């Protein structure tokens, strides 16, 4: 079962990559008041149902995939693709 995991920088932490993209867009005539850049990870896991899959992915997220100091994560509520 394929489920997506969204990882974004925490609001209180300066996302220098997002800030740079925001500045470049604004310099090119677009109007962006904020830009955040994160990661999207799709994991294919063995599971009977979506809850079981999400639980497994939560364990992986907390083991290594996100760093709570600087990031937040969100596991999708539906299968990917």
């Amino acid at each position, binding site marked *: 079962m394929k489920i997506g995991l969204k990882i974004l920088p925490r609001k209180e*932490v*300066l996302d*220098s*990559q997002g800030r*740079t993209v925001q500045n470049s867009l604004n310099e090119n005539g677009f109007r962006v008041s904020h830009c955040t850049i994160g990661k999207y990870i799709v994991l294919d896991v063995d599971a009977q149902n979506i809850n079981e899959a999400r639980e497994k992915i939560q364990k992986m997220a907390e*083991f*290594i*995939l996100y*760093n709570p*100091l*600087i990031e937040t994560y969100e596991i999708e509520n539906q299968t990917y693709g």
Partner: protein
Amino acid sequence: MKKVGIVRFLGTNCDKDVALAVESVGGHAQYLWYQDQFDVKEYEAIVLPGGFSYGDYLRTGALAAIAPIMKSVWEANQKGIPILGICNGFQILCEAKMLPGVLMRNQKQRFIDELEELQIESTKSVWISNYQSKQKIKIPIAHGEGRYYAEEDDLKALQDQDLIVATYLDNPNGSVYDIAGIMNTQKNIVALMPHPERAMSDWMGSQDGRGFFQWL
């Protein structure tokens, strides 16, 4: 002659420089492979050198932090064996939660490679026992992700317990409190973004890095 284990991950690229630095002060350097584990009793010091372990995938140092050899590094830490993390080694020790905080992308996004002036803040670890507090030294940096960040509580603990090893005089990357390096509460682990092994003699532009290795 002290035996120093130098950990090699795929993508480590400062291992030989560190070995030369260790040998130049009379130590005995031995490489350790990331997929192995080692007998911690055999080593008097461990170094995690700089580089780009695992191609910096996921987050710098994150995948190296869960590599097999880190079990031994963890054990060495439990036994109080001195451990030095340089650049990517600093990032790995933070991701392994052996040090507080994390190294983020430089504030100005760019990879910075230059000789940097530092001030030694605390000399309470064996790794920096050859310097004086407030001494100014020149050591090169070379990193894209060296902006030290930690939560308020951790920063307060670093300050209150005198665990900040060195600060930048001219903060190049946006690190909080100009932090260039820190140590753990046990004081056996020191880690910093600048490369002391690249400042070992005058022809390198500075020999101010020698102090980190002299005790070996």
